[in-house]
């Protein structure tokens, strides 16, 4: 099942911040992680991830550094900043409210 474009866009920031909460990562690995977690349901166009990462960086939520990959190639790594953790905590609360609301509605409909 493919997820709609709007929902993919809305969930991009909490997903990226949550993945970076697990530790430093890079664009390709973030996309692979999202694909694996959603069993391919959340399909991002790879290049579209980078404008979001750069926006989060300019907002001071994440920071980046150039490092080396296992094969010695240059690679840009991203890590969560303290303000990013705060934003993620807020986003988690908001998404939990949305999820709880939907669960109640759909739970009631199924009963």
């Amino acid at each position, binding site marked *: 099942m493919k997820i709609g474009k709007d929902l993919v866009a809305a969930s991009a920031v909490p997903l990226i911040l949550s993945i970076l909460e697990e530790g430093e990562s*890079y*664009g*390709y690995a973030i996309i692979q992680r999202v694909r694996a977690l959603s069993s391919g349901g959340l399909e991002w*166009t*790879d*290049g*579209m991830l*980078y*404008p979001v990462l*750069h*926006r989060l960086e*300019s*907002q001071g939520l994440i920071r980046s550094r150039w490092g080396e*990959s296992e*094969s010695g*190639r*240059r*690679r*840009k790594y991203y890590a969560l900043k303290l*303000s990013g953790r705060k934003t993620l905590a807020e986003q988690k609360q908001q998404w939990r409210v949305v999820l709880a609301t939907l669960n109640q509605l759909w739970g009631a409909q199924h009963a």
Partner: protein
Amino acid sequence: MPEREELIAGWRRNLAETTGCTNEILDELESHLRDELQQLLQSGYSEERAFALAASRMGHPRALATEFAKIAEPPLWLPVRWATFAVIVLAALLVGFLLSRWQDDRLESLVAAHVGAITLGYSISLLVGTLVICYVATRPFRDLSNGQLRGLEQTVFKLIATATVLTLLGILLGCVWAKDHLGRYWSWDPRETWGAVVVVWNVVLLLCLRAHVWEHRAILLGILGNGLVGFAWLAGAPHLRGLVIGFALIQALLFGLGFLPAGVLRRRGA
């Protein structure tokens, strides 16, 4: 292998021409393409097929250009540009004036440097206060965009940092002059004391800006700085105390107005 490099170089060239992205962004996108390519080759795809698939997964260059255009920094808010320009003009005029006085032997170099640093430091603090008042006056009608607000905060931070350094330098030069001419570095003279208060206040403002106190509203503290600069500048003129107190009270009122909800007058007018 050379063929793969040619394909990647061609893809990068096309991306650069279509998106106008910086080399750093292109490096990052190329790094991603290479990761994807490596993964697809390991999965058994042919070179040609793997490259076509990896490139298509990156997205169309035009679509990428649209997405990157969305994160481009918006132009600075007009009053911010004016304030920056005003600081440059003010500094040039002041330096020119003091240099001409110094060359005419009407001002000793230490005093010229002291007056220049203090005057510029205070003027920049006042300019920041005026800039924030512009923001307070605009906000009831329309809020600034996030990008404009970020630009305003960054400019306030940079200007206040400059004002702090200049004011501190001016005070230190004044201390050296006082030691030479009056025999002591510091005498708790009202001008010295209020100068020190301005420096301390500016440091507090910088810390609040860095800590995002009240989120972006920390910049409102810049208005209160106007009142302190008023006291510092006219500390040697006790007969103007009433005027300075009135000025400071107006600044406090403007500071309070900064907490009005954004767009409050627009909604009532609608």
